[in-house]
C-alpha cells in the first residue's frame, strides 16, 4: 500500500467503526498501520492452497458443562 492509500483506508475504516482519531494519535496510527501492511505482505507470500485450514477451533458448550 502506498502512503496515500494507507491514509485513505485508515480514515475511511476508522469512520466506519466510529473510531475518532485525534490529530495527535493519527500519525502513530498511520505508522503502525503501515507496519501491519508490511507484515500482511509477508503472510500473503506464504504458499497456501484452499485446503489449508486456519489455526482456529470452536468447542461447542454442552448444558452439562454449564451446570457444573
Amino acid at each position, binding site marked *: 500500500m502506498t502512503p496515500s492509500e494507507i491514509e485513505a483506508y485508515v480514515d475511511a475504516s476508522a469512520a466506519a467503526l466510529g473510531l475518532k482519531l485525534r490529530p495527535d*494519535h493519527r500519525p502513530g*496510527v498511520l505508522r*503502525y498501520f503501515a507496519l*501491519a501492511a508490511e507484515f*500482511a505482505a*509477508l503472510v*500473503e507470500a506464504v504458499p497456501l492452497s484452499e485446503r489449508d485450514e486456519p489455526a482456529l477451533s470452536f468447542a461447542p458448550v454442552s448444558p452439562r*458443562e*454449564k451446570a457444573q
Partner: protein
Amino acid sequence: MSAAALLRQDASAMADAVRGDAVSAVALVQASLDRIEATDRRVNAFTAVLRERALRRAAQVDASLASASGPRTRELPLLGVPFAVKNLFDIAGLATLAGSKIEREHTPPRDDAALVRRLESAGAVLVGALNMDEYAYGFTTENSHVGPCHNPHDLTRIAGGSSGGSGAAVAAGQVPLTLGSDTNGSIRVPASLCGVFGLKPTFGRLPRTGSFPFVSSLDHLGPFARSARDLALAYDAMQGPEGRGPHDPGCAQRAAEPVGAALALGTQGLRIGVLGGYFRQHAQPEALTAVDAVAQALGASRTVELPMVEARRAAAFLITNSEGAALHLPDLRRRAPDFEPLSRDRFLAGALLPAAWVMQAQRVRRWFALRAAELFQEVDVLLAPATPCVAPMLGTETFTINGQRLPARPSLGLLTQPISCIGLPVCAVPVWGCHPALPIGVQVIAAPWREDLVLRVAHALQQQGVAASPVAVAATAETT
C-alpha cells in the same frame, strides 16, 4: 538458617525448610514482605502487596501443620512458599488492572484466578500483584501509569515485559516464584533480561480462567523461578483439566503429565539442534555467545532451520494487533487518551486491520505448525536466543542488530514471537558471562506437550553451572 537467608534460596529449599520445621510459613512470608518493603521502592515490581491476606494464609499453613492433618499438609510441594502474580490474574477483592488505568474503575473479582487457587492448594502463599505493560501489549514494562519496573541487576535498565514485575520480583529475591503471561514473548523476554528461569508451556496446557485476556488465540500463562526444579514444582501443581465451568476455551483440558520425576533423566540421548538463519541474524554477539555456550555444554553441534521465520513473526503480529484491539474497541472509541501512550496508537491501528489479513495469518500459522512438526521428527529440542540483546537502558528507542537500526520496544520479541506463534513449549534459561554484568536468556524449545524435555535440559544446564539465577546485588544496595 534465618528466614531472610532462606529467601535467597529457591522455592524447593524453602518448602523443604517449612516441611522440616526449620522455619515457619509465617516467618518465611514475613521475610518476603520485609524484602519487598526494603527493595521495591527501587525495583517497582509490585503494584499491590497483600500483607494481611498473606500472613493470614501463612498462619493457616502453620496451624494445619500442627493439626491432625499435619502429615498430609507436610506433603504439599510448595509448602509456605511466597509467590506473586502479574496483575492480570484475578485476586479476590482487588481490581484486576492488567497494567491499565481504565480497569481501576471496574468491580474487583470475587474469586482468585484458577492458577492462583492451584498454587495455594499446593501450599504456596500469595503476597502480591506485579507490574506489567498495559494490557500486556509491550516488551519493556515502562508502565506510564505506575512507573517503570527496574531491572534488579542494573536499576537504570528495563526488566523486559510484558511480565516485567514477574521477572524482576524473582531476580530481586522478593519472592522465589511468580506467574506471568506470554502472548509473544512476555515470559521469555523478562526472564532473559532479569536472569531468571521462565516456562512458557504449550499453548492450551494451563487454564487461563480468571485472568484478563489479551489475545485469546495466543495467550499462555506460566511460572518464573530461580531454578528449573521450581518451575517443575509449580508447573506440576498447575496442570490438569478444570473442574468448574465455564472453562477456558483455549485450554486443551489434558490430564496432568507431571515432569518433576523426569528432571533427573538428564540430556543423554536427546537430539538437540541450534536454530540458524533468522535466529542468528537477529541477535547481538552476547546472545549468540549464550546460545553457543549452551549448545557446547549439551554437545549440540547441528544447526537446523525453520522456514519463513519472518512470516511467522508477521502472523503473530497481525493476530495480536487485531484481536487485542477488537477486545478494547469500546474503550478505544470512548477514551483513547486514557490508554498507555506507548501502545495506544498500535491498538488504534489494530482495530482497522482488514479481516483477510488476519485470516491469512491464522491459516499461515497452521501451515507453520505442520512444518515445525516435521522438524521435530528429526530433533527433540531446539535452541535459540531469547532476546536479541541484554537489557536496554530505560527509555531506549532503537538498537542496532547486524547493522540494521530497529525500534527497540517491539524488536525485543523478534526471537520469541515466531515460536509462541505455533504454541511450542519453551524454557528460557539465564546465562551469565556473555556480557560484563548482565544476563541473557536462551530458549530451550520442544515439540507440543513436551515440557518435560525443556525442563530436563534446563535442569541439566543449571546442574552444570551453565545456567544460573543469582539474587540481584543492585536491588540489595542501600538497605537490608
